[in-house]
């Protein structure tokens, strides 16, 4: 039933290997189908008729690589995406977080910052932002720059406002941004305690002990081996009985860490590290 790899599949493997050797970005354990779609989209946009041509271009031109990187990473997200997730954090994780004198929170794979700003707003409304240190990490420098700027498209505000309300928001969402630079500029105070940093879940190691890690819709792009590595990092980073939040369709069941996290809110994929 299994077919031999197509020419494109062979070329794709060579491309990610070349990218790893040359630029130290490791996409070798990303899932195949969506990565293939994104590389094909990059080929089209960068006027290459084969993946091999794209590879040659990227090998000899760092600018071309940074163009390709915008396709390989997936900066498609929204604020308070899956409002039930944020509502469950508010109701089921925040009461525990309030017992700590200071908090360290890690938003892993923060992309262009939507999840960071959403969490910062939630923490602010719960009186926790001032004593929180948030690490927001990603591998894409352009995404990190966008996250630091905190300017979101104005036309998204209607959707984000609805999401915010469904997520249990207690204020007027418009209090958090002003129209500026042709977009919605979010309050600087929200990210005063946020450290935006370059960090790869595929190649880097743990950098801090944390109380809560939020990583939604990142691990779906990883194969089981890489998912396992990432859950290992999270397990190592989390403090005793720390909290982990994943995207609503993500599973840890196939991982060797399945037994080391217990579900706190099953549907919302909130987990708690099992005690030693």
């Amino acid at each position, binding site marked *: *039933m*299994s*077919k031999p*790899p*197509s020419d494109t*599949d062979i070329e794709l493997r060579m491309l990610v290997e070349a990218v790893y050797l040359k630029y130290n970005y490791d996409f070798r354990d990303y*899932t*195949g*189908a*969506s990565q*293939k*779609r*994104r590389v094909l989209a990059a080929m089209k946009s960068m006027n290459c008729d084969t993946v091999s041509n794209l590879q040659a271009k990227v090998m000899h031109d760092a600018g071309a690589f940074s163009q390709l990187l915008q396709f390989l990473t*997936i900066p*498609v*997200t929204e604020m308070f995406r*899956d409002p039930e997730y944020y509502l469950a954090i508010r109701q089921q994780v925040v009461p525990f977080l309030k017992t700590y004198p200071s908090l360290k929170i890690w938003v892993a794979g923060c992309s262009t910052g939507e999840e960071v700003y959403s969490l910062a707003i939630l923490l602010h409304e719960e009186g926790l932002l001032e004593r929180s240190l948030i690490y927001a990490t990603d591998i894409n420098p352009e995404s990190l720059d966008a996250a630091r700027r905190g300017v979101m498209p104005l036309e998204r505000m209607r959707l984000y406002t609805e999401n915010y309300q469904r997520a249990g928001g207690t204020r007027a969402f418009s209090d958090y941004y002003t129209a500026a630079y042709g977009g919605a500029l979010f309050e600087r105070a929200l990210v005063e305690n946020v450290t935006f940093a370059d960090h790869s879940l595929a190649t880097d190691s743990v950098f801090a002990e944390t109380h809560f890690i939020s990583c939604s*819709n990142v691990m*779906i*792009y990883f*194969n*089981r081996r890489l*998912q396992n590595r990432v859950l290992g990092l999270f397990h190592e980073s989390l403090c005793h009985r720390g909290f982990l939040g994943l995207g*609503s*369709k*993500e*599973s840890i*069941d*196939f991982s060797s860490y399945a037994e080391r996290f217990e579900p706190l809110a099953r*549907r919302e994929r909130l987990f708690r590290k099992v005690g030693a």
Partner: protein
Amino acid sequence: MSTAAQTPLHGQPDLQAALHGRRFDAVVIGGSAGGVDAMAALLPVLPVGWTLPVFCILHVPADRDSRLAELFNDRLPLPVREAVDKETIVPGTVYFAGSGYHLSVENDFTFSLSCEPPVHFARPAIDVLMESAAEAYGAGLAGILLTGANQDGADGMAHIRACGGFTVVQEPGSAQVPTMPLAAIHRHDPDLILPLAGIAALLPMLENVKS
């Protein structure tokens, strides 16, 4: 001028001829507007002991959970589940794509989910599921496209055909909304164009085709 020859029963020899030499490993069925009714008419023909995996995808609203798997699990004699990220595909199981994420089939016959932008305003998109399944199963895939109000699925069906697979489009006149079948027929030359009753007669035959 016999009209009897056009009834599904009498059409069956043609179906057998169309399937001659084929052997399938999986079936993918897509639809949109009117698709729930069409699938409710179609899926119950799958018999007890059916062994192929069946991937079903309907356009569902992104902002709430889909209940399609539950709904059909109560109606079919086969296990019906929502496809889970990284899950290995199990034969004889009917899978539905959940809401808010694209569903793909990987070459190692597992599922993967993704949040890439909507395709034809749809996430999950039929094109994404069909194209990835075509890459994984090649000639072993049968694709069925039902009623719907947009263009999604046309590229997916064409890709199934290009990878050697078999394509069946619901006859537009018999579809609740003909846009989707028409777009697929315009985009590629399907192996069969059948009314829903014809597809219902064909579906159980996909498993036992001999070369």
